[in-house]
Each structure stands twice: as structure tokens, then as C-alpha cells.
């Protein structure tokens, strides 16, 4: 499991960096799908198979493929690619990289000083369902109203 976790984590990191630095939008999106799939594997390794499935189906499956279709339909072509290349100047990276490096140092520090025991507890579909339809019922209902509001607003703004 530990081996699986580290493999997936490295794949996720590489894929995410590739998302940022690739100039072709379609390539970037394919890398993003890989990154999400490896996050799903991480969920699985941590003992949450249901969350892993949802991540794979909803994010990598539905949303990303939708994005991909839109990008392919827009057919952005060579001009955007050149534009993107122009935006990728090394000096723009200095600020973000410094900040991220600080965060990395801080996180390594925290992880090294703390004695963390990662023993996965399996959380299956049954446990989640019992929670969702028991004490968390109101949250589910509320989320449905949230989606309804989004639907109505999107319908109104996007028509014609």
C-alpha cells in the first residue's frame, strides 16, 4: 500500500506540473485527467474506495471529458499555442516558485517533526450512506437546493 501511495503521488505531481507547463490546451487537460486519476488511487490507498470511485467517475470521467470536448470544439490551434509559449517566460516563475518552495520547506518540517501514524481505516459505501441518510440528511437536502439554484441561474444566463 505504501508503495502504491508513493507511486500514485509521484505520478500526480508530474502530471500536475505537466498541466501547468504544457502549451497545448488539450494536452494539458489530458494530463489533468491523469492527475485526478492518480489522486483517486491515493484515496484508494488511504482506505476510501468510495471516494476513489467518485473521483474517477465524476471528476476524471464526466467533468474533464466535458472540458475536453469543449476545448476540441473551440479548436484553438497554433495561435493560442504561440500565445501560451509567450506567457511562459521564466521570470514570471520566480515569485510563485519561491512561495511554493517556502510551503514545501514548511510542510517537510511539519512532517518530520510530527510522528504521524498512517493506518488506513476502510470507509465503504455503507458507512457513507448511513451517515448521509442519518444525521447528515439535511445537508443532502440543502445541497440539492444549491444545485437547483445553480441550474436556474445557468438556465437564465445561458439561454438564447
Amino acid at each position, binding site marked *: 500500500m505504501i508503495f502504491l501511495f508513493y507511486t500514485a503521488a509521484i505520478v500526480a505531481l508530474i502530471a500536475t506540473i505537466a498541466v501547468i507547463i504544457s502549451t497545448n490546451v488539450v494536452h494539458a487537460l489530458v494530463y489533468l485527467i491523469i492527475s485526478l486519476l492518480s489522486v483517486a488511487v491515493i484515496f484508494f490507498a488511504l482506505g476510501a474506495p468510495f471516494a476513489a470511485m467518485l473521483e474517477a467517475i465524476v471528476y476524471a470521467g464526466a467533468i474533464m471529458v466535458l472540458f475536453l470536448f469543449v476545448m476540441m470544439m473551440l479548436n484553438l490551434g497554433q495561435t493560442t499555442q504561440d500565445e501560451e509559449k509567450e506567457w511562459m517566460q521564466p521570470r514570471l516563475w520566480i515569485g510563485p516558485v519561491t512561495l511554493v518552495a517556502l510551503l514545501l520547506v514548511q510542510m517537510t518540517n511539519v512532517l518530520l517533526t510530527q510522528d504521524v501514524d498512517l493506518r488506513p481505516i476502510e470507509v465503504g459505501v455503507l458507512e457513507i450512506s448511513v451517515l448521509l441518510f442519518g*444525521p447528515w440528511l*439535511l*445537508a443532502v437536502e*440543502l445541497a440539492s*437546493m444549491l444545485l437547483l439554484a*445553480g441550474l*436556474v441561474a445557468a438556465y437564465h444566463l445561458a439561454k438564447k
Partner: protein
Amino acid sequence: MTSAMLFMLLPLILVTATAVVTMLMVAIKRRHGVSCIVTVLGLSLALVSLYFVLPSSTQELTPLMKIDGFSVFFSAVILLSAIMIACFSYPYFVNLEDHQDEFYILLSVAVLGALVMVSNSHFITTFLGMETLSVCLYGMVAYPLHRSAAAQYPMEASIKYLVLSALSSGFVLFGIALLYAQTGTLQFTDLGQALTYGIGPVPPVYFVLCCLMIVTGFAFKLSLVPFHLWTPDVYEGAPLPATAFLATVGKIAMAALLMRFISDSALLVNEAIVFVLALIAGASMLFGNLLALLQSNLKRLLSYSSIAHMGYLVIALMTVDRSADSLGVEAVSFYLLAYALMSLGAFGVMMLVSDSEQERDHIGHYQGLFWRNPWLALVMTAMLFSLAGIPLTIGFLGKFYIFAAGVQGAQWALLFTMVVGSGVGLFYYLRIVYGMLTPLDEDLLLPVAGLKELLPHCLLFLLLALLLLLGIVPGVLMQWLAQMASAL
């Protein structure tokens, strides 16, 4: 979930039913009037039902909802504001070259989000309520974007609000996740110990950072300086009913939530958090009032004034603690009610002289209003006096309450800033009143909605009456609030 618990949720169920029924009516036949009436009736029923659910002590409905006297009080203020805005929306939207019905559906669902925000002490419900309110507001702010003469910028305003609101939600969510990682609970629990000594090896600064992230997100939505940059543009670009909704319901729900978070989590034991809150309050009072000085657009002016008013409110929020004689909770409640009444009045007058085709939001539009329509000018003057905090109005008492709470908390520097800010504020409020008194040679085109729309005028009368009544004899309300504060 027992039937008694369901009964306690009756206001929320009624508001949800209102949205669903409006949507079903639209599916059968679109009628602007019917949608408006259904919405107003549904929300009024919910308002009436609050009287029956008012509990004598705090009621926990599953871990997610918590209903007590204050949640009922804030729910009542929110529902009252929403009903009035729905009534004012009808004359405003009647000439819109587009469907109007969706606005009322969004309004009902937004009210649901606001009601959830004021009646919980759990991070999940907090977040869901906040998002429900925000998602509806994106739609409401951009509502008139299909009309032919898009002179204003509803889409720009909506995108700005969307991006910044999503960012602030991200901050809140990150703070919640970090807190959950250490405390293992999503309830607003007492963090006093953790903020002072930490938990195990985790130092207190970790918890301070988490809480500050959550407070930052809330400050974004309350448009406190330095998180205020979206406010003037969104207020200006949005149609007036959406602006009024954002300014009243949005702010009340958020402030009530922040109050509960501060009091339940005992944030004020930490000096750093108190210091940050004090900085935010001081900056909001100063910048809000100073930036409002030079505005010639009434919506932008009111947006800057709202920044200043939320700054005053933070002074009272900083005195919300659990000691029995603290005035903080009462001051916040009273001030929010006062703020709702006077904002609704000011925006109500603007809505009556505007419609969706042309918004009359420039100060010049109101020049000489006293000589053309004394009634509207009188209401506007009373609202502006109240916003400025002149005695005999509820705005004065609200400020007085905050001042008393600040004295109790010994926040002398902030109180001094408040006095200076109010002095500056007096100038720009009175400038509008002066403009309304200046007679005009030629009659500027300002087709004021006539008396044929009787209901909005009655509502303005009601607001004016409440403004003066609660400003002169506030005793009953104050006693009630004190009683609830002691039961908290």
C-alpha cells in the same frame, strides 16, 4: 428525524416549497405577477411560522442545525427584507424584455441559504448555506443581461462577484479543513484552549491561522477593508433589487454567522485575532467613509457607506463573549435590524424612481426631488439621516448600542475612529439631502412611479414608521433582545 424536529424546520420547509411552487407555476404558465405573489405569500407564511417555532431554549436538530432565539430573530429580519425586496421588484422588472420569473425563484432559494446560515453552528451547514446564497446572487446580479440596452454592466459585476466570492469560499474551506484535521469535529467548538496552549504537539499559531482564514473569508463577504474591492463595482453593475438583496440579506446572514462563530468558538481569547479584527474594523470605518466622499453615483456611495457600517459592526462583534452582562450580542442584533431597515428604505426609493430599462442612480437624478415628489424625498431624507446616525432614528440607537458595547470592551482607539468616521459620513449623506432640496429650473426627467403602485409606497411608509418608532421607543425590542441574550 421526529415530527417535532420537522416542525422546528417549518420556516425552511416553507421557503423551499415557495421556490418549488414558483418553479412549477412557471412550468404551467409564465406570469410575472403570479410568480411575485406566490413568492411574497410563501415568504410571508414562513415569517408567520417563525412565531410558532420560537423555542424557549436552544434546540439542536441533528448535528447540523441549531435553532434559538437569535436564529429566529435574524430569520425574521431576513424574511422581512426579502418580502419587501420581492414587492419592490415587481414595478422594477415589469418592463424587462425578458422572463422575470427566475428572479423570484433565485430570491427564494437565496433566502433559504441565508436562513440556514443564521441557524447552525456546524461548518458543513455554514458552507452549504453560504454557497446557496452566493450561487443565487451570481444569477441575480447578472439578471438583466439579455435586455437590448445593456447600458450597465450586470455580467461584469456578476463575474467579479463570482471570482472573488469563490476565492473567499476557498479560504473558508481551507481553514475548516485545517481545523478539522486537528480537532476532528466540524461543530463550532470551544477553541479557547487550543488557541492558548495548542493541542498536543500542534502549536496555538496553527489554530490562529485556521481561524484567521475563516474570518478572512467571512470578511470578504461582509466587504470589510482590505477585502472590499469588489463591492462598489458589484453594487453598481447589479440591478437594484439584487443590490438591495446583497446589501441587506447577504450582509445580515454573514454578520450573524460571524457572530455565532466568534461566540461559540471563543475566538476572542486570542490577542492576535482581536488585533486583526480591530485593524479590519478601523480600516473599514476610515476607508469606507473617506472613499464615499467623492462618489457621484448613489449605488457606489451606498456601497462605500455599507463598508463603513460593517466596520462599526465589527466593534460590537469584538465584544461578543460569554460573560453575562456583555452588550455585544444585543448590539449586533439591534444594529443589523437598523441597517436592514434603512438600507431597504434608501434602495426602495431608488427602485421606485428606476426601472430595469433605466436606473436612476446618479445623485443628479435626485436634485430637487423635494419639489417634485415630497413624499419620496421625505422617506429618502429619513433613511439618510438614520444612516448618518442622527437622533430620533433607529440608526442613532444602533450606533449608540455599538458605542456602549465598545465602551464596555474598552476599545477606545476604535471608538475614536468611529466618531471621526461618522463625522465624515455626515458630509456625504447631507450632500444628497442638500441636492434634493435645491430647486431646479427645468424639470429633470424623473418619472416617479405614481401612486398606482400602492403597495411599494405602503411598504416605504411601514419602513419609515418602524425607523421612527424604534428610534423613539425602542424599549420593548431592547428588553426582548436582552432577554434572549441572557438565555444564550
